[in-house]
């Protein structure tokens, strides 16, 4: 068995007695690109929220590189190497693309460090290469608020890449993208999955087919099925609740 980077065991969270995630076990290997699918309200986003510390689980454990995450604060989890992209692209609209990427650079994240931060040529190079990778190499000076929806999605992925995370959590990265942009995103994700693990929540099955190594299906807070794309697609229960006949 390959080295596990993420081990989620018996994870449960309830809001007002309603179990949004209910006893989920979820393992991700190193270098794996995993897709999580399921109907809205199945608990996919809540699962990512718990891994990255946004929501505290009611019970269960989340181990990342053998470190327990559930007691850590968001920024500590980020510093440990977990990057999170939100459902709605969340970029700093008042700042330029360059500044968005620069802020995400994982050094000098304390107050004094950031006060006297100077952009070295190394950082400059890193920003340029990431910007190029996310197809925004020519838009560095642009205010992020002026980017198209799809470009904002890429920028947010780029901001995560600046952090060099070992585990990337992406919530609907291609929502609102054109088919062409979707393909570009698939290329991008395949490229960046080298040397790190990625968990993607997505509805677009064609897109999932393009990228997924393995697929996990959630339904009503519980794990419904897990396997390769073909296994999942032919699973009767998955067809019943999600894919449709």
């Amino acid at each position, binding site marked *: 068995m390959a080295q596990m980077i993420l081990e989620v065991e018996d994870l449960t969270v309830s809001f007002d007695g309603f179990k949004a995630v209910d006893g989920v076990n979820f393992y991700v290997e190193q270098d794996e690109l995993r897709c999580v699918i399921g109907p809205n309200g199945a608990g996919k986003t809540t699962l990512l929220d718990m891994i*990255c510390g*946004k929501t505290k689980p009611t019970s269960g454990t989340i181990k990342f590189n053998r470190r327990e995450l559930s007691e850590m*604060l*968001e*920024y500590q989890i*980020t*510093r440990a190497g977990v*990057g*999170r992209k*939100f459902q709605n692209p*969340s*970029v*700093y*609209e*008042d*700042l*330029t693309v*360059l*500044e968005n990427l*620069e*802020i*995400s650079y*994982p050094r*000098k*994240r*304390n*107050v004094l460090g*950031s*006060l*006297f*931060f*100077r*952009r070295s*040529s190394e950082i*400059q190079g890193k920003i*340029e290469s990431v910007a190029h990778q996310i197809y925004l190499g*020519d*838009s*560095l*000076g642009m205010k992020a608020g002026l980017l198209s929806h799809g470009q904002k999605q890429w920028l947010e992925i780029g*901001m995560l890449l600046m*952090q060099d995370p070992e585990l990337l959590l992406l919530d609907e990265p291609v929502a609102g993208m054109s088919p062409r942009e979707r393909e570009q995103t698939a290329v991008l994700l395949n490229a960046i999955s080298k040397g790190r693990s990625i968990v993607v929540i997505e509805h677009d099955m064609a897109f999932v087919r393009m990228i997924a190594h393995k697929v996990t299906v959630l339904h009503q807070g519980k794990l419904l099925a897990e396997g390769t794309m073909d296994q999942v697609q032919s699973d009767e229960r998955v067809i019943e609740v999600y894919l449709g006949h």
Partner: protein
Amino acid sequence: MENVLPAAAAPAAKKSPLALMERWGWLILAVLLLVVLPLWLDVFRLTLAAKYLSLGFCAVGLVLIWGYGGILSLGQGVFFGLGSYMMAMFLKLEAASNPDSSSGTALSAFFGGEGMPDFMVWNSVEVLPWWWEPFHHVGFTIPAILLIPALSAFVFSYAVFRKRVGGVYFSIITLALSAILAIMIIGQQGYTGGVNGINDFRTFMGLDLNNDKAKHVMYFITVVTLLGVVGIGTFILRSRLGKILVAIRDREDRVRFSGYDPAMFKAFIYAVAALFSAIGGALFTIQVGLASPSLVGIVPSVEMVIYAAVGGRLSLIGAVYGSLIVGSAKTLFSENFVEYWMYFIGGLFVFVVMFLPEGLAGLLARLREGKNRRENV
């Protein structure tokens, strides 16, 4: 350094009008304050200007925390007051220990409280409280003014921000702090001078505060310090920290997931604003000759916000103009039709919020943009 990248240089060349104004505005402001006002105004008016500029320190701090940090503090009077009172304690002790200049001391000599501040004698406080003692020394007083308000602001606000208390709740809590401090000062008359405050100072480190030359010197010190404070503010805003601040204001969650501790940054900038206010308070007391609870409580704390709002909550320099303009208006009203002042300032709050949310700086920027657009057509 900044020109390594063509794409990065592009926006620098085409600065927004607001940014341009901030760049040249600094020079314009310096000329106005250092040359025009001293040549134009008599000593009395110049001291009034100095008074408003002292309050301008708070407004500059508010631009940092409110405009860029998104945190509306209604407790800047607390820090202004701390600075003001610490300076007052020093000045009062100096006046009390100088036998030839102080009438208060003559009186205290009569009552047998030599070296004691006069109001303590009148309140039959016989021994100088221990926490007054260190303020005999300028070497303690000045560091205390620079450190105590800033440190307490940091500790208090970090605790609060860590709990993710923000927005309106923070405003209300800081409002309560202003109320608390004002009540305490008024309540402990024997130690603080109560509702009359502490006044009747003579000298500041031997400099006779009542002569015109001293007033001029103090005015220049105030202006230079204020320009320095604006400079520090500009430096902070242009640094990566400034960008992070804007990022926190707009998307605090994202910042957290970029590995930052937003509470630390907010507390830092809050402490900086507190430091500015304390400096303003100290300079105010030297020049106006007064430390008073009427400058600590809720009313002045909220009024400081309007200085920043009139100038433009996103413009450090605007805050200075805002303080000067609103302050001068106050003088104008109080000299001519005092009963309308409250209508004016009340109306100003409503007007700025409704029609000028970015203040004068925003108005200027809009005018310029409008002009540019017309020229481009």
